[in-house]
């Protein structure tokens, strides 16, 4: 839910509406009439201010520009030059929009509306903190904005009367193509009413005459006009477009239908588009500064939070590492006290002992004889040779046996070579078979060598 404050600043007093917006529906929660002197104090606590500023003198001109000029900046520059020519030495704020073209026209006409900055700023200075101003415009644009919200027709008149000030705008495709503000200074009510009707009817006729291509369908009355049925009847009789009353209560709640007509300008200020606003560059600068300041504030706060978080994160990491460090120091000290470090002499002696072991006790005949135990238990070797020199180890054993029958020889042979195959050694083992099957003599020489180079077996065992 958003909260706004719509203010209609007139010459001596101001109307202040507190508005809340929820789901495209505006709710007027409070309205008050304030003397102009008290407005600064009154608006001190308000935010999101939408201003309608009544100006006695405004710029309302039609300016023609050659149709070949299409660049917006050039058009704006031409209009500004022409305005300066007619309003010497006065600083002005203006906006413009193109009027409907008539055929064969070589020039394009622009409706130019503006305010004199000096007087306009006098009214704006009533707001202590201009940064809070969201929108500021003049009465006819507030009326236009509210009328556009209420009326969907393409072309229409919107006429407003407040005190003696009559505002008439002709609208085509949501843009004002004609406007007129008149002050009626008459004390006699009957005369005033007749004059009012005359003014309205004449203006309608004039606009219809000026814009013949446009078919105005409605005359929408608001302000005091909406409360006076006789005026509406008179206009209805004389003018072609049908007469109706502006009814903003469909989307603005919190006010009775008749009550809303007292605050048409204030309510209208809520809907004024940016193009129809008049905000001096000084205030725009202040707003930009305020926006920049807010962004800087948010960024610096974010940076501070990120910095603090980052520092905290590093601190947690540091703290964990420090705890780990203390634990490691404790463990290390404990290990230092528990583990002896031997003197270098002792270590050297141990190392020499290992080296001597490797050199002198690397191989012993018993080692190979132990691994050959399964064969030795089967048959004692007739001859045996073992030698170790220059890291070259060689062992050979000759097994001989005579058998009575071929069957015994066969079974012995199988058993012998099965056991030989089962011998587990890291060295290369081989055998040389010289069995005489005629004489049934078993004769085999087994060789075991340290495998410097892989040697081929002297004779492969027969495949049985």
């Amino acid at each position: 839910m958003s909260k706004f404050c719509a203010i209609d600043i007139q010459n001596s007093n101001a109307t202040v509406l507190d508005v809340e917006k929820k789901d495209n529906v505006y709710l007027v929660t409070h309205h008050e009439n304030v003397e102009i002197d008290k407005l600064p104090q009154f608006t001190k606590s308000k935010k999101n201010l939408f201003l309608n500023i009544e100006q006695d003198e405004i710029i309302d001109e039609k300016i023609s520009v050659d149709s070949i000029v299409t660049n917006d900046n050039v058009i704006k520059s031409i209009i500004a030059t022409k305005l300066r020519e007619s309003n010497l030495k006065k600083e002005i704020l203006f906006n413009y929009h193109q009027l409907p073209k008539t055929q064969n026209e070589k020039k394009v006409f622009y409706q130019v509306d503006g305010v004199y900055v000096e007087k306009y700023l006098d009214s704006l200075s009533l707001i202590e903190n201009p940064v809070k101003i969201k929108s500021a415009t003049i009465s006819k644009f507030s009326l236009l904005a509210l009328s556009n919200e209420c009326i969907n027709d393409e072309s229409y008149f919107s006429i407003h009367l407040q005190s003696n000030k009559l505002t008439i705008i002709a609208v085509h495709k949501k843009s004002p193509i004609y406007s007129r503000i008149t002050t009626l200074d008459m004390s006699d009510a009957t005369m005033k009413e007749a004059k009012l009707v005359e003014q309205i009817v004449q203006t309608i006729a004039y606009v219809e005459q000026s814009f013949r291509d446009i078919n105005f369908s409605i005359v929408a009355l608001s302000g005091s006009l909406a409360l006076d049925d006789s005026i509406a009847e008179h206009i209805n009789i004389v003018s072609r477009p049908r007469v109706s009353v502006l009814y903003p209560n469909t989307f603005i709640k919190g006010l009775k239908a008749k009550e809303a007509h007292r605050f048409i300008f204030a309510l209208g200020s809520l809907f004024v588009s940016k193009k129809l606003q008049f905000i001096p560059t000084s205030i725009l600068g202040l707003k930009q500064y305020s926006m920049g300041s807010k962004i800087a504030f948010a960024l610096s706060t974010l940076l501070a939070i990120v910095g603090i978080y980052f520092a905290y994160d590093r601190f947690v990491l540091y703290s964990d590492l420090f705890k780990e460090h203390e634990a490691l120091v404790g463990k290390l000290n404990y290990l230092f006290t528990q583990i002896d470090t031997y003197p270098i002499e002792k270590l050297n002696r141990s190392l020499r002992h290992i080296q001597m072991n490797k050199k002198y006790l690397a191989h012993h005949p018993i080692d190979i004889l132990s691994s050959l135990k399964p064969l030795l238990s089967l048959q004692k070797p007739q001859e045996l040779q073992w030698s170790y020199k220059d890291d070259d180890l060689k062992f050979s054993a000759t097994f001989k046996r005579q058998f009575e029958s071929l069957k015994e020889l066969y079974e012995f042979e199988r058993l012998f070579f099965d056991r030989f195959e089962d011998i587990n050694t890291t060295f290369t083992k081989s055998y040389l078979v010289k069995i005489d099957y005629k004489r049934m003599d078993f004769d085999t020489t087994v060789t075991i060598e340290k495998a410097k180079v892989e040697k081929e077996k002297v004779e492969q065992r027969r495949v049985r």
Partner: protein
Amino acid sequence: MRNSMIITLALLIFVLSMAFATWLEEQSQKIDARNRQYVKDMEKLRTIAQINSFIESEIAPFMVDEQSNSTEMDKKLIYFASENQNKYNLLVEKYIYEDDFAKNIDFSYKIERDKKDFLNDFLSMKYKDGFIQFRELKLDAKELSGRLQVVQPFSIENKSSQEIGAEDGSPK
């Protein structure tokens, strides 16, 4: 004005926080490096403990006294040979010589195959002041013969002094 002060303060906090974080980061890196070093040191200490245990159980009990007196070493070798000369028919193959670790003497031996007790004693024979290294072993129908080396280790100091002496031109 108030906003400006808050922005300045926030930026100051950010700068200080970042500086503090950077300092903590540096300290963390230092501590982390030290921790890793300590872990390595502990691993080294554990390895040292394993080596100590290995030395005490596998090395120290079997370590032989390394002699520093050259004459004493010669004597020991000769006396050992004399003790076993007749028993195993020891004959000098190569008289006392030195290598990196010890003084050595090489013998040939010969034992009749029938003397089984002798054979077993011979194969399990030990030299208490050093080592016996078999070089050759032959077994035929009659006898066991071959070559062996008796090793008498000397201490490092002895080796060094002898090398220095050799450089001086004095005999080893």
